[in-house]
Each structure stands twice: as C-alpha cells, then as structure tokens.
C-alpha cells in the first residue's frame, strides 16, 4: 500500500477555501428547502437516515434503496472499525508497537471496563465477551487487517498529536422534518488550529476529516467526502467548517482529498436531497405494491391505504419526487 503522509500531502491552508458563516447558512437553506420539497405532500414525515453509505448506494445501487433493513446483529465487520481505531490510537500513544499486538488488549480492556462499570465504550462489549476463542479471534483478525491499513497510511509523528480517533457521529436533524437525519461518520479528525494564524478567527479550531472506506472509490468521491464536512458543519454551526476531507480506500490503495468550499458543499447538499427524495420515492413504491390487484387480489386496497402512513397522498407522490430527483441529478 502506498504510504500516505498527510503532513506532507500538500498545502491545506487555502485562503479561498474558507467557508463563511453566510455560506454555510446558504447551504443549510438548500438542504432544508430541498428536503422539504422532496417530502412535500406526505402526511407523515418519513424517517430517513442519510449516511455516506446510503449516498453511495443511491448512486451505485439505486435498486437497493427502500429495501428492508436486515435485523442488526454484531459481526466482525461491524466491530473492526471501532476496535481498529482504538488499536491505532493505542499505537500512536506508544502503548503498542503495532495493531496486531494492540487489538487483543484493547478489546479486553473494553470488556473489563464494561464488566466493572456497565459502561459500553463501543457497544459490542457484551457480545464480544460472550464469544468463544474462535469467534473472538475472527473479530480480532478483522480488526488487525483494518487497523494495519490505517496504521501505515500516516506519518503519525506528525499527525498523531493532532488526531482525534472515532468519537461520536455527527448527527443533524432537518428542521421541519424531524424524521430526516444526516449522519456523518469519519474515522479521524485532525486538528488544524496549530497551523493557523492566531488572528484568523475563522480557522481557529478548524479540522481536517479522514474517512476510510472499503472497496473502490466511485466516480463521485468529491461530493461524498464533502458530505462529511457538510454534516459536521450543519451540526456544529459555531465551529469552522472542516477545511479538508481525506478519503482512504485501502483495498484499492487509493486516497483522495477535497478542499471544502462553498461550491463543493452545494454539490454535497444536492446529493443529500436527491438521496432523500429517492429513498422516499422507493418507500412509497414499496408501500404501494401490495395494493396492486394483479399481485394479490385478496388485499383490499382501501384497507391497505388506511394502514399506510403515506396513504393520503401516495398516488401523487412518486412523480413529484421523481421530478426533484432528475432535476438534482442533472
């Protein structure tokens, strides 16, 4: 894998890249208005959580939108990120030489703490504690592989002191449509304040976000990475907008960085609106399917409509939403 040295990866401080508070307000209005239009006509506001993953799916696998969610169950791939991040952090702090020797003790510490205090740092502690040796090893192995890719991607002597690993997701609830939530999850936040001029208030506390993804980067990585900055900015409007977002795709050996500016945030906002519209559209289609007599003549359409939260305006919705989608896509 190619070593990515963030400290030497190019100038970050671009004076023209700063997003002002007014810019952010304008982008926020785009998102709020766009979402309102996308869900207009619905009697009950739908519950939609937009994530980086759902943004990608909306573009690459539109048929998967609206598909029922699998019931959640812990798996190694769900643990590898949080455990891997904690392992890398432990290595950066000098507690371990490498992720392969960090993951076990880090996981054990988490379980011990949960047993002592009931506090679940990662949420998987009870599940992990109940695993046998083989299953436990599978979890640790997955985390080692994930963490090793991140461990070699940075010059930690430089980035380590400025890095904040994991942490809570950025969550923003759309005003007026409380069922629409934007969730941003980045793996690392790098503090840029040490590199800013003391008089530059706009940049004080500014961050650089790092996102790690599996697979291959798609052809819309700029907007997808900017989405993380958008959510971070929306949910903390008093803080500077992240200056840059770095995406890593270890499987593909790819990295890509975007400097966040107004235009890019607008494009990310457009992607969000399209994603919400398509999700609503897909759910309406799913809800409408049982009404079709050809499929199930035994179903009483009136009863189905009465039971559907989309029932009052369902018939007119898809076209309206589709219209928004195609506009935004273009």
């Amino acid at each position: 894998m190619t070593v990515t040295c963030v400290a030497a990866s190019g100038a970050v401080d671009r004076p023209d890249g700063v997003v002002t508070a007014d810019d952010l307000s304008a982008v926020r209005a785009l998102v709020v208005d766009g979402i309102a239009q996308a869900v207009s006509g619905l009697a009950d506001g739908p519950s939609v959580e937009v994530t980086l993953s759902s943004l990608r799916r909306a573009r690459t696998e539109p048929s998967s939108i609206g598909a029922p969610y699998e019931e959640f169950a812990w798996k190694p791939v769900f643990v590898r990120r949080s455990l891997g991040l904690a392992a890398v952090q432990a290595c950066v702090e000098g507690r371990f030489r490498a992720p392969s020797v960090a993951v076990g003790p880090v996981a054990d510490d988490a379980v011990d703490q949960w047993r002592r205090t009931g506090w679940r740092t990662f949420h998987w502690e009870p599940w992990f504690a109940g695993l046998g040796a083989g299953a436990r090893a599978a979890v640790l192995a997955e985390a080692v592989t994930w963490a090793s890719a991140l461990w070699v991607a940075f010059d930690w002597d430089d980035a380590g002191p400025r890095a904040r690993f994991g942490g809570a997701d950025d969550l923003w609830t759309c005003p007026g449509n409380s069922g629409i939530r934007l969730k941003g999850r980045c793996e690392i936040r790098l503090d840029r304040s040490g590199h800013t001029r003391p008089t530059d208030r706009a940049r004080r506390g500014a961050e650089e976000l790092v996102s790690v993804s599996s697979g291959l980067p798609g052809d819309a990585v700029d907007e997808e990475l900017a989405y993380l900055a958008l959510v971070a900015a929306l949910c903390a409007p008093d803080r500077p907008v992240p200056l840059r977002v770095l995406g890593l795709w270890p499987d593909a050996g790819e990295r890509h960085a975007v400097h966040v500016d107004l235009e890019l945030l607008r494009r990310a906002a457009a992607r969000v609106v399209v994603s919400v519209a398509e999700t609503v559209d897909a759910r309406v289609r799913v809800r409408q399917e049982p009404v079709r007599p050809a499929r199930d003549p035994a179903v009483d359409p009136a009863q189905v409509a009465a039971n559907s939260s989309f029932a009052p305006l369902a018939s007119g919705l898809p076209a309206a939403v589709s219209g928004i989608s195609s506009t935004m896509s273009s």
Partner: protein
Amino acid sequence: MITDPDSRGTRVDTGVGPGTTARVGGGSATPPSAGWQPLAGPALLDRLRVTGRPRPSVDAALVGNLRGYLDRGLDDVAATVGGPATVVTGHRLTAALACGIHRPDDGVGCPPISAPLACGALVGVLFRQWVTTGSFDDPFDDALEGLSIDGHQAPVVAWIEGLSAARRSELRAEVGRQADGIRQRWPALDPAWLPRTREPIRVELAHGRVELAVRIDLVLGRPAVLDASVALVEVTSALLRPGHRDDARLGALAETLRSGAPPFAVATYSTRTGELDVEAVTPELLVGAANRLVAGVRAMIPGGERSAAGAAPWCAGCAAELFRPAASTVTSVSPVRAARPAAPDVLVDVPEELAA
C-alpha cells in the same frame, strides 16, 4: 479419512538452500516423499524472506507499463461490455481459463460443498486465528465458531452441521491434524512486519469495466518505500498444485497495481503437508500474470474466447495433469467429457461465490 483425489505424481526438489522445500514447476500435487520434513520456525520465515534474488525496486514505470499493458489487452472489452463491471476473482479466472474437460459445471468455479472444501474453510479460519492470537483451544470448535460468526459462510457451516457423527469425527480429526502442523511450524510473527490476514485488494481495469478482487490470506511487511518489502502468502489445505502458483501470481499482480510496488515474494503454504512454495516476484512473473488475466477476462465476457477441451494453455487442471502418472495423463488430455478428473481437492478459501 478425508482423501485427496490428486495425491499421486512426482515431486521435484530444487535443493535451493539448505532445508528448503521449494519446488519447480509450481508443485506437483503429490505428497512429500518419506523422510522429508517441512520447514518450521525461523527456517520457515527465512525461506519466505530470502528468495535468492534481490528485492525489486519500487518502479513507477513498471506499474504504469503493466496497467497500460492490461488496458490495451482489455481495450475492446471496455468498449463492448456494458452494465456493471465484470468482477474477476481467482476462482472465476481459473474457471474461465479451464479447458472443456476441466471447466467446472457451474462455469464460475464454485465447487459443491464437500468434506475437503469444508476442511479447507475450517483450516483457513484456524490459520487466521493462529496468526492473530497464537493459540487454539479445540481447533475444530474454534474453527467452526470462527466460520459461524457471521452469515457469510452459512452454507458451509450448515453442511458441516448436517454431517453424521462419524463424518464429523473424521473432519474433526483432519482439522486437528492440520492445526497441529500450523502450531508446530508457524512461529509468532514479529508485529513490526504488520501481519494481516485476509487482506482484500480491489483494482479497476479497462476503464472501470473490469474489477479485479482478490483476498490474500497473509500479508507481511510494511509498504514499500524504495525496495519491495511485502510478501504475500496464500494458504491451502490441499496438496500444492500449479494452480496455486497462478493464484499467488494473480495476488502479486493485484498488489503491484494497487500499491505501485510489487511484493518481493509470493508463497503458497499447504497446511496439509507443511510445504511452503515461494517465488520471487519478477517482472516476468508479473507479465505472465497479466497475460493470464487478459486471457481469462476475454474468456469470461459473454461470447468470449473459451478454450476447447484439452487445448487451453492456461488451464490449471491440464497443468496438474502433467504431474500425474502416465495413464491418468493420457485420459485427461483426451477431449472426452466423460474423462473428467475427480473433483478438485481442498480449497482453503471457500469461493466468495459460494458464500451466502
């Protein structure tokens, strides 16, 4: 007893260095001769680290040339094939390149679940466990737990759980035997080598129309800076055969394209025999892998150039037949479908296509 249908043939020792077990010709699908002892401990790692050739330098031009070579070879594929990208895995490539005799029934190299395949899946999990934790409790139980932890291997797990007590006991014994071999031969790996298991590699080719997707069982070494510093190890619970080298070389090609630097070595380790087959990665090896990949993709696409029975230069089954006794060889090259050889033995990696 779990049997290996390909446990015949001759073995060629190269005598490369004291105590090595390297072979020429990509293995011979035959168990090691009596008296031979597999490498263990530091000697095994030395065999992996010291290939007998200087480690290749990181060469951007080589990588660029390889990519250009592949793109030119697949140019018309990119132009003619629509829809989602064609995903190329090692199993699919081998299946596409097989001749009419050795071509799998399903066309994509997804063999039916069998005792050898289940054994391979279990031992693969155990190898990962050993590298990660350095210990087993009960190997069979550990492996089954590891295999069951998510739904990905559900068909294999269900097959194992459906075995009769007697068959399950046989499987348990073989898994335990191979686990003992891992325990005795593989030392703890230095954390500084960043040992990581089942590492995925994804590479886009032909302007995104083809996606190469492989997983390497064990990757050792930090990313290359000036000289190649990574070694790839594929693990199999089968006897070594030429097809394993093809898979390892494909991994070398994928790693080179992904990282911009070739690995310095690719190896296949047989948990069944303890053999470690190591190849130094050279430009010639990478070009050979690229040629095979191009041929395979062209055979894979609709209307592609499939080889006739017994006439496929890249057919792993035909290559394996070369090391069989003469009578078997004569039968295998006959372009008669009925002469199809026995099912392949253990694959340590259950094909992705088989998993749920």
